[in-house]
Protein backbone atom coordinates (compact mmCIF):
# COMPACT_ATOMS: atom_id res chain seq x y z
CA UNK A 1 0.00 0.00 0.00
CA UNK A 2 1.44 3.33 -0.98
CA UNK A 3 1.03 6.50 1.04
CA UNK A 4 -1.64 9.05 0.30
CA UNK A 5 -0.82 10.75 -2.95
CA UNK A 6 0.19 14.40 -2.53
CA UNK A 7 -2.28 17.06 -3.55
CA UNK A 8 -1.50 18.81 -6.76
CA UNK A 9 -3.56 21.34 -8.58
CA UNK A 10 -3.43 19.16 -11.68
CA UNK A 11 -5.29 16.47 -9.78
CA UNK A 12 -8.09 18.78 -8.88
CA UNK A 13 -9.34 19.85 -12.27
CA UNK A 14 -13.07 19.31 -12.30
CA UNK A 15 -14.10 16.25 -14.26
CA UNK A 16 -17.52 14.73 -14.74
CA UNK A 17 -18.08 11.72 -12.56
CA UNK A 18 -20.96 9.27 -12.73
CA UNK A 19 -22.41 11.46 -15.40
CA UNK A 20 -22.38 14.52 -13.22
CA UNK A 21 -20.06 16.58 -11.08
CA UNK A 22 -21.44 17.16 -7.65
CA UNK A 23 -19.11 19.91 -6.52
CA UNK A 24 -19.98 23.35 -5.31
CA UNK A 25 -20.30 25.97 -8.03
CA UNK A 26 -18.19 29.14 -7.64
CA UNK A 27 -19.31 31.20 -4.65
CA UNK A 28 -19.79 34.96 -4.82
CA UNK A 29 -16.85 36.72 -3.25
CA UNK A 30 -14.77 33.55 -3.11
CA UNK A 31 -12.04 34.68 -5.49
CA UNK A 32 -11.51 37.92 -3.60
CA UNK A 33 -11.41 36.05 -0.30
CA UNK A 34 -8.86 33.61 -1.69
CA UNK A 35 -6.61 36.38 -2.93
CA UNK A 36 -6.81 38.24 0.36
CA UNK A 37 -6.24 35.09 2.37
CA UNK A 38 -3.19 34.34 0.25
CA UNK A 39 -1.92 37.76 1.23
CA UNK A 40 -2.37 36.88 4.90
CA UNK A 41 -5.75 38.49 5.58
CA UNK A 42 -7.26 36.66 8.55
CA UNK A 43 -10.78 37.93 7.97
CA UNK A 44 -10.68 36.69 4.40
CA UNK A 45 -9.60 33.28 5.63
CA UNK A 46 -12.55 33.27 8.02
CA UNK A 47 -14.82 34.05 5.08
CA UNK A 48 -13.40 31.07 3.22
CA UNK A 49 -14.07 28.97 6.28
CA UNK A 50 -17.68 30.17 6.39
CA UNK A 51 -18.10 29.39 2.69
CA UNK A 52 -16.72 25.87 2.84
CA UNK A 53 -17.14 24.64 6.41
CA UNK A 54 -20.35 22.71 5.80
CA UNK A 55 -19.06 20.90 2.77
CA UNK A 56 -15.73 20.06 4.39
CA UNK A 57 -17.27 18.94 7.66
CA UNK A 58 -19.99 16.91 5.96
CA UNK A 59 -17.44 15.10 3.86
CA UNK A 60 -15.40 14.29 6.97
CA UNK A 61 -18.50 13.13 8.79
CA UNK A 62 -19.55 10.83 5.98
CA UNK A 63 -16.09 9.34 5.77
CA UNK A 64 -15.58 8.62 9.47
CA UNK A 65 -19.16 8.56 10.83
CA UNK A 66 -18.11 10.16 14.09
CA UNK A 67 -18.93 13.77 15.01
CA UNK A 68 -15.91 14.49 17.23
CA UNK A 69 -13.51 12.90 14.80
CA UNK A 70 -15.10 14.71 11.87
CA UNK A 71 -14.75 18.05 13.63
CA UNK A 72 -11.08 17.37 14.35
CA UNK A 73 -10.56 16.48 10.72
CA UNK A 74 -12.38 19.56 9.47
CA UNK A 75 -10.15 21.62 11.75
CA UNK A 76 -7.05 19.93 10.36
CA UNK A 77 -8.28 20.42 6.78
CA UNK A 78 -8.61 24.16 7.30
CA UNK A 79 -5.24 24.37 8.99
CA UNK A 80 -3.81 22.59 5.96
CA UNK A 81 -5.62 25.10 3.81
CA UNK A 82 -4.03 27.92 5.77
CA UNK A 83 -0.60 26.42 5.15
CA UNK A 84 -1.19 25.65 1.47
CA UNK A 85 -3.45 28.39 0.21
CA UNK A 86 -0.47 30.19 -1.28
CA UNK A 87 -0.03 27.27 -3.68
CA UNK A 88 -3.54 27.60 -5.11
CA UNK A 89 -3.19 29.25 -8.52
CA UNK A 90 -6.84 29.54 -9.45
CA UNK A 91 -6.85 27.50 -12.64
CA UNK A 92 -9.01 24.83 -11.03
CA UNK A 93 -12.15 25.23 -8.93
CA UNK A 94 -11.24 26.13 -5.38
CA UNK A 95 -14.07 24.00 -4.00
CA UNK A 96 -12.71 20.97 -5.83
CA UNK A 97 -9.18 21.68 -4.63
CA UNK A 98 -10.44 22.05 -1.08
CA UNK A 99 -12.45 18.88 -1.44
CA UNK A 100 -9.38 16.93 -2.50
CA UNK A 101 -7.33 18.43 0.30
CA UNK A 102 -9.97 17.29 2.78
CA UNK A 103 -10.04 13.76 1.43
CA UNK A 104 -6.27 13.59 1.80
CA UNK A 105 -6.47 14.79 5.39
CA UNK A 106 -9.02 12.09 6.22
CA UNK A 107 -7.01 9.38 4.51
CA UNK A 108 -3.82 10.42 6.30
CA UNK A 109 -5.67 10.39 9.60
CA UNK A 110 -7.07 6.93 9.05
CA UNK A 111 -3.70 5.58 8.00
CA UNK A 112 -2.10 7.04 11.12
CA UNK A 113 -4.69 5.27 13.21
CA UNK A 114 -3.48 2.10 11.59
CA UNK A 115 -6.91 0.76 10.95
CA UNK A 116 -6.50 -2.28 8.78
CA UNK A 117 -9.89 -1.65 7.26
CA UNK A 118 -8.58 1.54 5.70
CA UNK A 119 -6.40 -0.52 3.44
CA UNK A 120 -7.93 -1.21 0.10
CA UNK A 121 -6.09 -4.47 -0.04
CA UNK A 122 -8.67 -7.19 0.23
CA UNK A 123 -7.62 -8.45 3.61
CA UNK A 124 -10.39 -7.11 5.77
CA UNK A 125 -11.24 -10.61 6.78
CA UNK A 126 -10.91 -13.92 5.02
CA UNK A 127 -14.49 -14.02 3.82
CA UNK A 128 -14.14 -10.57 2.27
CA UNK A 129 -10.84 -11.30 0.59
CA UNK A 130 -12.00 -14.00 -1.76
CA UNK A 131 -13.27 -11.92 -4.60
CA UNK A 132 -16.81 -10.77 -5.18
CA UNK A 133 -19.30 -12.40 -2.86
CA UNK A 134 -22.03 -14.29 -4.62
CA UNK A 135 -25.67 -13.69 -4.10
CA UNK A 136 -27.14 -17.14 -3.72
CA UNK A 137 -30.57 -16.64 -2.22
CA UNK A 138 -34.03 -15.96 -3.40
CA UNK A 139 -35.21 -12.48 -2.58
CA UNK A 140 -38.26 -11.70 -0.58
CA UNK A 141 -37.81 -7.98 -0.91
CA UNK A 142 -36.83 -5.66 -3.69
CA UNK A 143 -35.02 -2.58 -2.43
CA UNK A 144 -36.46 -0.24 -5.02
CA UNK A 145 -38.49 2.42 -3.28
CA UNK A 146 -37.57 1.17 0.16
CA UNK A 147 -34.54 3.32 1.03
CA UNK A 148 -34.78 6.72 2.63
CA UNK A 149 -31.87 9.02 3.38
CA UNK A 150 -31.78 8.26 7.08
CA UNK A 151 -31.80 4.53 6.50
CA UNK A 152 -29.02 4.76 3.98
CA UNK A 153 -26.95 7.06 6.23
CA UNK A 154 -27.25 4.49 9.00
CA UNK A 155 -26.30 1.66 6.71
CA UNK A 156 -23.27 3.55 5.41
CA UNK A 157 -22.18 4.21 8.99
CA UNK A 158 -22.24 0.45 9.56
CA UNK A 159 -19.80 -0.24 6.74
CA UNK A 160 -16.18 -1.08 7.55
CA UNK A 161 -14.08 2.09 7.04
CA UNK A 162 -12.39 0.82 3.89
CA UNK A 163 -15.70 0.09 2.21
CA UNK A 164 -17.21 3.32 3.46
CA UNK A 165 -14.38 5.43 2.07
CA UNK A 166 -14.72 4.09 -1.44
CA UNK A 167 -18.52 4.21 -1.38
CA UNK A 168 -18.54 7.81 -0.17
CA UNK A 169 -15.87 8.92 -2.59
CA UNK A 170 -17.46 7.24 -5.62
CA UNK A 171 -21.19 7.08 -5.12
CA UNK A 172 -21.73 10.12 -2.90
CA UNK A 173 -18.96 12.51 -3.84
CA UNK A 174 -18.66 11.52 -7.48
CA UNK A 175 -14.98 10.69 -7.77
CA UNK A 176 -13.94 8.31 -10.54
CA UNK A 177 -12.16 5.07 -9.79
CA UNK A 178 -8.91 6.34 -11.26
CA UNK A 179 -9.08 9.34 -8.93
CA UNK A 180 -9.82 7.15 -5.91
CA UNK A 181 -7.01 4.80 -6.85
CA UNK A 182 -4.64 7.75 -7.12
CA UNK A 183 -5.66 9.15 -3.75
CA UNK A 184 -5.58 5.85 -1.93
CA UNK A 185 -2.59 4.32 -3.61
CA UNK A 186 -4.37 1.22 -4.87
CA UNK A 187 -5.31 -0.22 -8.22
CA UNK A 188 -8.42 0.83 -10.12
CA UNK A 189 -9.58 -2.76 -9.98
CA UNK A 190 -9.24 -2.74 -6.24
CA UNK A 191 -11.32 0.41 -5.99
CA UNK A 192 -14.04 -1.18 -8.12
CA UNK A 193 -13.94 -4.34 -6.07
CA UNK A 194 -14.26 -2.44 -2.78
CA UNK A 195 -17.14 -0.39 -4.15
CA UNK A 196 -18.97 -3.52 -5.21
CA UNK A 197 -18.46 -5.09 -1.80
CA UNK A 198 -19.65 -1.92 -0.12
CA UNK A 199 -22.86 -1.93 -2.15
CA UNK A 200 -23.37 -5.63 -1.47
CA UNK A 201 -22.92 -5.03 2.25
CA UNK A 202 -25.35 -2.12 2.14
CA UNK A 203 -27.87 -4.29 0.37
CA UNK A 204 -27.52 -6.94 3.04
CA UNK A 205 -27.86 -4.37 5.82
CA UNK A 206 -30.93 -2.79 4.30
CA UNK A 207 -32.62 -6.08 3.54
CA UNK A 208 -31.86 -7.65 6.87
CA UNK A 209 -33.52 -4.80 8.73
CA UNK A 210 -30.37 -4.05 10.73
CA UNK A 211 -30.88 -0.46 9.70
CA UNK A 212 -34.14 1.33 9.19
CA UNK A 213 -35.53 1.54 5.73
CA UNK A 214 -39.01 2.69 5.01
CA UNK A 215 -41.91 0.76 3.50
CA UNK A 216 -41.49 -2.34 5.57
CA UNK A 217 -37.99 -3.15 4.56
CA UNK A 218 -37.42 -5.13 7.71
Amino acid sequence: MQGVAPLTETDTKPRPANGQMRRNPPIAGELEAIQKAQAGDGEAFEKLYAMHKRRVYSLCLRMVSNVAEAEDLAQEAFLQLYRKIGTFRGDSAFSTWMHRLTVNVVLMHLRKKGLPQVSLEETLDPSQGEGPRKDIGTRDLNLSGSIDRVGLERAVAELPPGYRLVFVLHDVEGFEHNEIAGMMGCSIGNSKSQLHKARMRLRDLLKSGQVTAKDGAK
Partner: protein
Amino acid sequence: MINISADCAAFQEQLPELIGENQDPSAHPHLATCENCSELVRDLLYIAQQAKLLLPLHDPSPAVWEKIEAGIDKEPKAKK
Protein backbone atom coordinates in the same frame (compact mmCIF):
# COMPACT_ATOMS: atom_id res chain seq x y z
CA MET B 1 -33.17 -20.84 -1.33
CA ILE B 2 -31.75 -21.38 -4.80
CA ASN B 3 -28.23 -22.66 -5.29
CA ILE B 4 -26.11 -20.35 -7.37
CA SER B 5 -25.55 -21.66 -10.87
CA ALA B 6 -22.29 -21.57 -12.77
CA ASP B 7 -23.78 -18.89 -15.00
CA CYS B 8 -24.72 -16.77 -11.99
CA ALA B 9 -21.25 -17.18 -10.52
CA ALA B 10 -19.62 -16.16 -13.78
CA PHE B 11 -21.91 -13.16 -14.14
CA GLN B 12 -21.41 -12.00 -10.56
CA GLU B 13 -17.64 -12.29 -10.96
CA GLN B 14 -17.92 -9.69 -13.70
CA LEU B 15 -20.22 -7.37 -11.76
CA PRO B 16 -17.59 -5.19 -10.02
CA GLU B 17 -16.06 -4.44 -13.40
CA LEU B 18 -19.37 -3.99 -15.18
CA ILE B 19 -20.89 -1.65 -12.62
CA GLY B 20 -17.54 -0.09 -11.74
CA GLU B 21 -17.21 1.22 -15.26
CA ASN B 22 -20.59 2.87 -14.93
CA GLN B 23 -21.88 0.57 -17.63
CA ASP B 24 -25.46 -0.56 -17.51
CA PRO B 25 -25.29 -4.31 -17.04
CA SER B 26 -29.05 -4.65 -17.58
CA ALA B 27 -28.55 -5.76 -21.16
CA HIS B 28 -26.27 -8.63 -20.18
CA PRO B 29 -27.64 -11.87 -21.74
CA HIS B 30 -27.57 -13.68 -18.40
CA LEU B 31 -30.16 -11.34 -16.95
CA ALA B 32 -32.72 -12.27 -19.55
CA THR B 33 -33.04 -15.67 -17.92
CA CYS B 34 -32.07 -15.07 -14.29
CA GLU B 35 -34.43 -13.22 -12.00
CA ASN B 36 -32.11 -13.53 -9.00
CA CYS B 37 -29.21 -11.75 -10.70
CA SER B 38 -31.60 -9.25 -12.29
CA GLU B 39 -32.85 -8.31 -8.85
CA LEU B 40 -29.30 -8.10 -7.54
CA VAL B 41 -28.35 -5.69 -10.32
CA ARG B 42 -31.47 -3.60 -9.78
CA ASP B 43 -30.70 -3.34 -6.07
CA LEU B 44 -27.06 -2.38 -6.58
CA LEU B 45 -27.92 0.28 -9.12
CA TYR B 46 -30.67 1.56 -6.86
CA ILE B 47 -28.25 1.86 -3.94
CA ALA B 48 -25.81 3.80 -6.12
CA GLN B 49 -28.65 6.07 -7.24
CA GLN B 50 -29.86 6.63 -3.68
CA ALA B 51 -26.34 7.54 -2.55
CA LYS B 52 -26.97 10.95 -4.04
CA LEU B 53 -29.46 11.50 -1.22
CA LEU B 54 -26.52 11.64 1.17
CA LEU B 55 -25.42 15.03 -0.11
CA PRO B 56 -27.27 17.14 2.47
CA LEU B 57 -24.77 19.12 4.48
CA HIS B 58 -24.20 19.43 8.20
CA ASP B 59 -22.76 22.32 10.18
CA PRO B 60 -19.74 21.86 12.42
CA SER B 61 -19.96 23.25 15.92
CA PRO B 62 -18.64 26.79 16.55
CA ALA B 63 -15.80 25.24 18.53
CA VAL B 64 -14.21 24.10 15.29
CA TRP B 65 -13.49 27.64 14.15
CA GLU B 66 -12.21 28.55 17.59
CA LYS B 67 -9.74 25.68 17.42
CA ILE B 68 -8.72 26.67 13.90
CA GLU B 69 -8.04 30.21 15.06
CA ALA B 70 -5.98 28.89 17.95
CA GLY B 71 -4.10 26.67 15.51
CA ILE B 72 -3.44 29.54 13.12
CA ASP B 73 -1.97 31.57 15.96
CA LYS B 74 0.67 28.88 16.35
CA GLU B 75 1.41 28.70 12.64
CA PRO B 76 4.03 30.65 10.75
CA LYS B 77 2.61 32.98 8.11
CA ALA B 78 0.86 31.31 5.20
CA LYS B 79 3.03 30.81 2.11
CA LYS B 80 2.58 33.35 -0.60
